[in-house]
């Protein structure tokens, strides 16, 4: 109910054209990975998924942001059923290294996938300017190593950085474009850097074509 209202609100403010390279016919487990430019990104991707996929899609979000305050906690846990991870670069209250946190994040994502959920991830790790897609964090690669059966779908968001630029609280209504690309996966024996760059390019090349 609340999620439906939020999705309708997000569409009224920032909804726009949704394009699919190939509309998924089944509900197999997928990872939708997108460029990250605003706080509205997840909810817009989520609301543009067909209903049968939407109910299974969980966002992967930063715990240090979403655990702060009762409203964010409620939204993250109850409404979106988010998989909260600690960002490798965040100042955690423990002294584990970034690698240990990375491993933990992947474990959380695998756990979050369970046997029938899909994930929406933003592998850039933080919000960018919207023009270029920044280098991806390694989590996507390790996740694919753990679960090679997953179908990876690149998603490109355009114009959302103008709707809600970093540092602003109230969005300016604008028409966005969401493009879902052709599914891809980790090739047997593909090195980490090559895979991450290939995934990043898949998102970048989806821009206005």
């Amino acid at each position: 109910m609340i999620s439906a209202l939020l999705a309708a609100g997000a569409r009224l403010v920032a909804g726009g054209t949704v394009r699919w390279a190939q509309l998924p016919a089944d509900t197999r487990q997928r990872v939708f990975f997108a460029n990250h430019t605003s706080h509205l990104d997840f909810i817009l991707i989520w609301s543009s998924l067909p209903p049968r996929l939407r109910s299974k899609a969980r966002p992967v979000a930063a715990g240090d942001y979403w655990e702060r305050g009762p409203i964010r906690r409620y939204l993250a846990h109850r409404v979106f059923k988010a998989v909260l991870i600690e960002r490798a670069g965040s100042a955690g209250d423990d002294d584990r290294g970034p690698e240990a946190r990375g491993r933990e994040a992947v474990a959380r994502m695998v756990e979050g996938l369970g046997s029938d959920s899909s994930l929406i991830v933003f592998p850039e790790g933080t919000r960018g300017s919207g023009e270029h897609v920044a280098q991806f964090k390694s989590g996507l690669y390790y996740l694919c190593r753990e679960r090679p059966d997953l179908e990876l779908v690149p998603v490109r968001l355009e114009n959302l950085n103008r709707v809600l630029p970093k540092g602003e609280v109230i969005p300016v209504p604008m028409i966005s474009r969401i493009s879902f690309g052709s599914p891809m996966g980790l090739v047997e024996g593909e090195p980490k850097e090559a895979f991450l760059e290939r995934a990043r390019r898949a998102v970048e090349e989806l821009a206005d074509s």
Partner: protein
Amino acid sequence: MSVFRDHELLWLMAGLATLLLVATATGQVLERVVVTAPARATVDNVNARVRAWWVMSLAFAVAVASGGIGSVFLFALISFLALREFVTLSPTSRADHAALVWSFFLVIPLQYVLVGVKWYGLFSIMIPVYGFLFVTARLVLAGETERFLARAAVIQWGLMACVYCVSYAPALLLLDVKGPAHVNAKLLFFLVVVVQLSDVFQYVWGKLAGRRPIAPAISPNKTWEGFVGGVGCAVLLGTSLWWATPFNPWQAALMALAIAVMGFVGGLVMSAIKRDRGVKDYGALIEGHGGVLDRVDSLLFAAPLFFHLTRFFF
């Protein structure tokens, strides 16, 4: 809802429904008859438009039938969506964010509240005077000087066109005119039906007989044949609706002429803006129609003039 006991309004609605039924039937026949690919594309586009017309007519009928408040809400939503499209295609800068937020979430609601409470004095100057000053002031406070005047002008123009001009349509409900019962609702009906059907007539005449473009640099589809045939039909339509207005047949014909000509100019202006931005349609919100702005471009220019002509003479 006493409007439902108003036989004239019911006749108008029935007329609209009949027109849509005829259009739907014609579209179905054309779909079976037409064979060539370009003609098919045209027919598909026309049928998509007719389907959208059903939805829009229904929303409009509900708004009119609800008396004042439904129309105020409907046109406020239209303003919101139109401004959203306009801003999307405008080269706004990061520094315009606050001014734009205020435009959407303060100026639009305020303008329509003024219509709703029938405060003509403030309604008619709020955006041209205070909106004008406010946008400039807010932009200068943001501290970005690059293209300052151009950025201010874009926001001010967007507010004038998408909010101020559109709000003149529901503002017909605050006019104090003598005429048949529910005359204000009928005036709104008259304006919207004449302006929209004038577009349709011009489109059809242009497709059938269009030869000489009026402004080839702006829109190759707008021809003298389409203009004359379309405006002529719109005038006939307006004249035939005189019984539902405060006008006599001659006055209704002149009003329809003013509406159709202004509507044409409005469409041309929006085409020029689109061409400058390098896009064909303002959005993809209404199937077959492009965006909301593509649908209300003619209303933008026609509504204020029709309002003031009616207010001055009747």
